[in-house]
């Protein structure tokens, strides 16, 4: 094993060059004046240029990225500081904007003086696409997960389904308060039938929501409490005495009508 390492160490420049050439992402070396001294095959392919057109030219003329010739240039930072720097940027190739991530490291001679820099470039177009899709989807889910419905004039319903984490609770408070302000509602029914489990954190969020509605001058009724949830709340010792709780949504609505002095009657 050591023999192999040693024979590799002693290998001539051609083999080392070949190794660099075979790396599938662009690799580029520049001197201190940012003139390109080396670029591997993948690099030449991605900028769509021949070595004759690249050799000795300034790297900003070849890449033309949004960081070129600005303070943002990580290669400049790497050469100035002697440390590795990385960033995301956009490069215009054949009139197309392409997102890239690049890592710049300084190159040193035997004495340790910085003589230039080496740059690794990674095409992140696909990753960016995925990230954007994920952002879009989480936004959609968030919007879907917190609908506040005006069930009756002055009565709002907030059905809660799934898991209540602090992010979602925050979003619920916001959408609910805005809806209360918009509709001037006096009662809001929060239906937690769809919440699988209630622990102290979830209960805490619920209590916070009821306090918020109270400050808006709106009464909060908690409905959809299943036997299992009721038992866990008592076992956990959570104080919900100040909150009106009902077992079903229809009981909640009946309570809301009582608060609003409304009556539902059979037609004679």
């Amino acid at each position, binding site marked *: 094993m050591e023999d192999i390492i040693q024979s590799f160490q002693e290998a001539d420049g051609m083999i080392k060059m070949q190794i660099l050439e075979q790396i599938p992402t662009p690799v580029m070396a520049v001197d201190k004046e940012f003139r390109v001294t080396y670029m591997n095959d993948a690099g030449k392919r991605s900028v769509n240029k021949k070595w004759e057109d690249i050799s000795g030219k300034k790297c900003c003329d070849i890449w033309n990225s949004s960081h070129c010739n600005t303070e943002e240039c990580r290669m400049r930072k790497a050469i100035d500081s002697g440390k590795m720097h990385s960033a995301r940027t956009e490069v215009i190739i054949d009139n197309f904007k392409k997102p890239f991530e690049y890592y710049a490291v300084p190159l040193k001679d035997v004495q340790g003086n910085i003589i230039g820099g080496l740059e690794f470039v990674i095409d992140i177009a696909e990753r960016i696409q995925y990230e954007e899709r994920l952002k879009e989807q989480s936004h959609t889910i968030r919007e879907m997960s917190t609908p506040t419905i005006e069930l009756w004039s002055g009565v709002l319903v907030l059905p809660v389904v799934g898991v209540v984490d602090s992010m979602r609770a925050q979003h619920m408070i916001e959408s609910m308060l805005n809806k209360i302000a918009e509709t001037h509602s006096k009662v809001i029914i929060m239906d937690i039938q769809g919440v699988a489990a209630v622990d102290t954190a979830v209960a805490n969020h619920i209590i916070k929501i009821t306090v918020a509605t109270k*400050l808006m*001058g709106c009464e909060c009724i908690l409905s959809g409490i299943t036997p299992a949830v009721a038992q866990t709340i008592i076992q956990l010792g959570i104080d919900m005495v100040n909150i009106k709780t009902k077992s079903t949504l229809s009981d909640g609505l009946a309570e809301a009508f009582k608060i609003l002095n409304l009556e539902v009657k059979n037609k004679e």
Partner: protein
Amino acid sequence: MGDSSNNLSTSITLVKGCLIVTLPNDITDADIKVGVGNILRRIEKSSIRGVILNLSMISSVDTYLFKILEKASKTISLMGAVVVWVGLRPGVVSSLIDLNIDASKIKAAMDLEQGLSMILNDNLNMC
């Protein structure tokens, strides 16, 4: 009337036996102190059923301002008047919730109309 000239930043109006106090956005604790003094004197002079604090102009409330307002409300309720906070903005409420304030002793209403009916009904119940 001489009292209220000290304090031009808050307006105090009497409607149906209730004092409606509108607080400006840039209210200070000194303003509140003077305002509370005025309100207490008016309650002493004439029978006032309740006091409505209109906070709809206030765009942000920190714990300090909240404590001062809470203290003011307690002082007024000691004189036998019902205190109702009115018109808290959604943004103010959510920031207060983030600050983990205790709102159990506060009566709040959506708008002036609901606040007024709250005070009038409250007094009816007590009779």
